[in-house]
């Protein structure tokens, strides 16, 4: 997995597809408010609300 370009997409997309298919939504946490992202897994923000900065 790389943090930019297609490398991250290879890891992200199947998980995103599965989550959307089974739950109807893409899981978002306070550290990853934009959803599944290999880039964000490496550069995490604090686990608190982004306060509208999503």
């Amino acid at each position, binding site marked *: 997995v790389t943090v930019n370009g297609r490398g991250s997409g290879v890891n992200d997309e199947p998980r995103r597809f599965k989550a959307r298919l089974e739950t109807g939504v893409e*899981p978002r*946490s306070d550290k990853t408010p934009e959803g599944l992202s290999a880039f964000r897994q490496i550069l995490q923000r604090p686990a*608190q609300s982004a306060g509208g900065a999503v």
Partner: protein
Amino acid sequence: VENVPDPQILNPRDAIVKITSTTICGSDLHLYDGYVPTMRSGDILGHEFLGEVVEMGADVKNLSLGNRVVVPFPIACGHCYQCRRGMFSICENSNPNAALAEKLWGHAPGGIYGYSSLTGGYAGGRAEYARVPFADVGPIKIENSDLTDDQVLFLSDASPPGTTAPTCATSRRATWSRSGARTRSGP
């Protein structure tokens, strides 16, 4: 104590809970002592809490504003293979950082409130408000107003392992490997 932004609805299956009681769990010591990596300054901890529903996403149909709810610590989607088997703690969809946990632990748990990036990076309940994802699955409504917070708070974490342990101990289908991991065998 720090001021942080109020949580927001990010998905239609989210709810916002106004916290009335929360706890410090023994498991929080693993974070404090550094046994669980990927913590960051500013993380809100707390995976056992209860409170009042003050906001809901459009797809949360089983709760109402004002409901008093205990929020179990595992975040579960309710629809994946593991959730349908009742194995909510290893939900396949609620942990956006599952790949991180798989690298470190070999498998990924589902999301957990306030318990590092490895369990999803969700803010916990040691705050005035918390966002509850998949609120149509996890929260338990407390409809008996005679019950105090102290009487129901432990439904969020301490009680489930206590009731699950005897079930595991008496299950003929469960065996324990030498490493301690639970494995399944024939009937």
